[in-house]
């Protein structure tokens, strides 16, 4: 028996060098039917009591030793694989598929980041609206010529329409919440327009509202300056001018110098040299009053802008219909 143990040990020494796969090595010695150690152990019951006393522990010891050695080899092997290196690290593989947010929503998300940093909350409102919130509360009485600025799509039900701007959400928030208020909202708006490369019957608007004590035109100018710097870079050049919008007084139009022609006039800026980015102003006295906010105590500013043109410019999309309905190569 001693001899057998000795031979086995020697063979194992050889095998551990030669047999690369630790699992195969384990099976060779410990498989239930043919394992070399298993076989020796199977022979134990046939021995005399004295021999049992002598070789039982020896065989046990052998079993433990070999198993431990195999385990060590296995661990070594594993760490070896982990540290293994490839000779050629230049082989290119195609990208792992990741998901993408729609360009318009990605743009909105970026803008929301800017405004939440400045303490604005993000709100929403309905697209099916009443004339009260879409027009009246925004200082647009029935039959006012300015209602013509927006060709409204009406629902087949008297008094209901599809909102023509996100200012309707402003009217709702001003009505439902007490100042101080600082909110932005983005969403779909609808106009009765014929489909073309640049127009669809629905657009995306972005709206901001700021109502507090002591809010002035100075604050509006500064907020919008930072906003444009955020969108277009620090060297953006802006022009502030008076512009009428029914829901504000005084109203303010904001243009940025066309970066394509540096103000000289080109196709992008329709030869104006400036690109109109948004409309804004101090919230109309009557709007605040109609929304039950005291305009003698609180003042506020609001601004609104169309997003689609900016998104199309950013992604080089020449047809708005492609932005909302064709398959993207994300």
């Amino acid at each position, binding site marked *: 028996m001693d001899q057998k143990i000795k031979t086995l040990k020697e063979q194992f020494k050889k095998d551990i060098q030669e047999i690369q796969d630790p699992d195969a090595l384990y099976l060779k010695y410990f498989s239930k039917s043919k394992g070399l150690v298993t076989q020796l152990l199977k022979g134990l019951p046939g021995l005399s009591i004295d021999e049992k006393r002598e070789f039982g522990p020896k065989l046990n010891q052998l079993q433990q030793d070999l198993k431990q050695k195999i385990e060590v080899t296995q661990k070594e092997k594993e760490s070896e694989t982990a540290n293994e290196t490839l000779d050629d690290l230049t082989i290119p593989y195609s990208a792992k*598929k*990741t*998901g993408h*947010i*729609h360009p318009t*929503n990605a743009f909105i998300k970026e803008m929301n980041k800017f405004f*939440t940093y400045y*303490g604005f*909350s*993000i*709100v*929403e*409102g*309905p*697209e*099916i609206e009443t004339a009260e919130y879409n027009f009246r509360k925004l200082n647009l009485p029935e*039959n006012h*010529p*300015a209602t013509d600025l927006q060709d409204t*799509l009406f*629902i*087949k*039900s008297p008094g*209901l329409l*599809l909102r023509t701007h996100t200012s309707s959400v402003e009217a709702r928030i001003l009505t439902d919440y007490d*100042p*101080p*208020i*600082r909110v932005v909202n983005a969403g779909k708006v609808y106009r*009765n327009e014929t489909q073309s490369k640049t127009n669809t*019957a*629905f657009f995306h608007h972005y709206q901001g509202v700021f109502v507090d*004590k*002591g809010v*002035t*035109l*100075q*604050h509006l*100018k*500064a907020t919008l300056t930072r906003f444009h710097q955020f969108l277009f870079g620090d060297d953006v050049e802006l*022009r502030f*001018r*008076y*512009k*009428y919008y*029914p829901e504000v007084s*005084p*109203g*303010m*139009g904001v243009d940025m110098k066309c970066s394509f022609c540096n103000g000289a006039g080109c196709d992008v800026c*329709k030869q*104006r040299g400036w690109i109109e980015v948004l409309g804004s102003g101090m919230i109309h006295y*009557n709007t605040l009053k109609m929304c039950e906010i005291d305009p003698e105590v609180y*003042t506020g500013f609001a601004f609104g802008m169309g997003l689609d043109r900016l998104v199309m410019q950013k992604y080089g999309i020449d047809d708005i219909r492609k932005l*909302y*309905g*064709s*398959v*993207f190569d*994300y």
Partner: protein
Amino acid sequence: MVLPIEWLKEYVNTNKSAEEIAETFTALGLMLDKPIEESTFGNAVLDLEHRMDRADWLSILGCARDFAAMEGLELKTPEREIKKPTPITKNEQIPVTVNCPELVSRFNTRIIKDIKVEESPKWMQQRLQEYGIPAINNIVDITNYVMVEYGQPLHAQDIAKFEKREIVIRKAKEDETLTTLDGTVIKLTPKMFVLTQNDKPITLGGIVGGKETAVTNETTDIVLDAGNYNQANIRHTARALSIRNETVLRSEKFLHPKLTQVALERAIKLILEIAGGECYTNQDWYPAPQEPQTMQLRYKRIEKIGGEAVKPSVVKDLLQKIDYEILEESKEGLKLQIPYFRTDVLVEDDIVSDVLRLQNYENIKTIMPPQAPPKNITFKEHKMKQAVREALTKIGADEYVTNPLVAADLEKEDQVRLENALSKEQSALRADIKETLGKVAKEAFKQGKPGLIFEVGRVYYKKGAGAKKAEKAFKDYAEARKVTAIQVPSKGGYLKEVHKNLKTALAGLFSELEIKDFYFEQPKDSEKAFIKQENLKLGTIETTSFSLDIEALIEAQKTPPKIIREHTNSSTLDFSLVVSKEQRIGEITHAIEILDERIKECKILEEYTGEEIEKGSRGVLLEVLISAVDLTGDDIQEIQEAVTKKLEKTHGVKIRK
């Protein structure tokens, strides 16, 4: 508003270049809209963007007034005939009757006799041409000239062509027609009003003149009118008839009735000068003269809006330059009479606007708001939509936004349809995002771009037909926020595989959103299954798509996420079942999962058919994960029995040994 620079200089003396003049106009509220053009006479012509509110900015004089104020220049106002006209005899009078006083505020007329109709002077023709109105004859040209100069449309008619000396303004009758100056025959409706004589329409008031009484070279006596009409009615009539002209452009704005008098005086001055003749009175129909508007301006209000105090002397100077009249003055502010032509001034802040804009917005300081941020009120719907977007893109899905306008389908009772759509294809709103996102999915399949696509958007329906949880509902209409995802199959892909991918994505989404314990419930013979959590319906799932309700997701998310658990012992139990084709496996696993709180999950390890399974049935291998603090053999035994009982008794499932 087209502004020939040479004409502008009639009222204001400026040496500035056309570009500089355009810059001033842009700052004060009339932005240069198109590149500066040169007329055939070599003069610059500006095209300024007009914004509906300022009716006086549709006149060169009105534009010149603001320009002069901003530039600190004098405004030269045109000469008008202020000598009283000769009273007309009763026989020669043309009485005015208005049968629709709700549509007419003022109808101001004069008679001019013994005029000589011929070509108008060259300077006038040139200005009109630069503005964009062709010259006709001196009388028509003068009415056009004064309209562009003052913004009030005027209208001259040949008295000799009247069958009866009268002007009756009434609503048009059904099927009545009028032949306009250019020979077009227009069909009138009772919603429109017309000027008539001898019960025949002769002019569409405030819109276009008629051919029958038009001034020609033979004309000697004319009746000249300036009317102030209901601007909304003008707008609707002009739209209905598709007439856009210089007259409509002005009549549809809020013009002041006083302007009729000023414009008539100016026109008469020019007519007498250019065409000769003598002016006589005729009726001025003005039953309810409008008083001039007065308003208080507080200096403090200017500071409150503009951020900085403006010296009272500067305020007074600027306002007087644009014709505000100071009625009273105090330390605190001014009592002002608003210029009659400023029909846009409604509140004190409008006067503040005048003060601020005439000093140029560019000069207003730029200061960040110092106020502390208010309470955050970000809507939970927005947060959920954003979370859904992030989660789905994280697991590899692409977001799309599609046009919610769809074709009307009269079969669909709950569809929201539009009253005035421009095209049939876009005459209603979608009730399901799949209606519009489905087209993208089809296209992606055609192009061989498999994968999961989704849209977060709204659906619209008539109430009662859709989900109860609608954000806002007006009368019978409602809208709800949804997320819909479609698994675009690869070409030749197995449907089961496609569905598995969709389910995996849904499970991934719920895992990201920390929405637990969801299950599926499929009604008999339905191609859709509900996605539920307890009794809450989260949405529906079909073979290749699912749709979830954003508000339901918010509710489902209420359980706080558990990221650290107590130490528990766990064990598994396997069950091999035979279920009939009709039985829903998802419903069985859900029933087991909610059977005992020690059951954590019931997984399908394998689903198979084969020789040993009778036809029409499936073999299913379930693994039930049990976990509890100090789990004992008795626990396991108990659960084993409970599950077996549930499977056999409630679901009638055979358990294979």
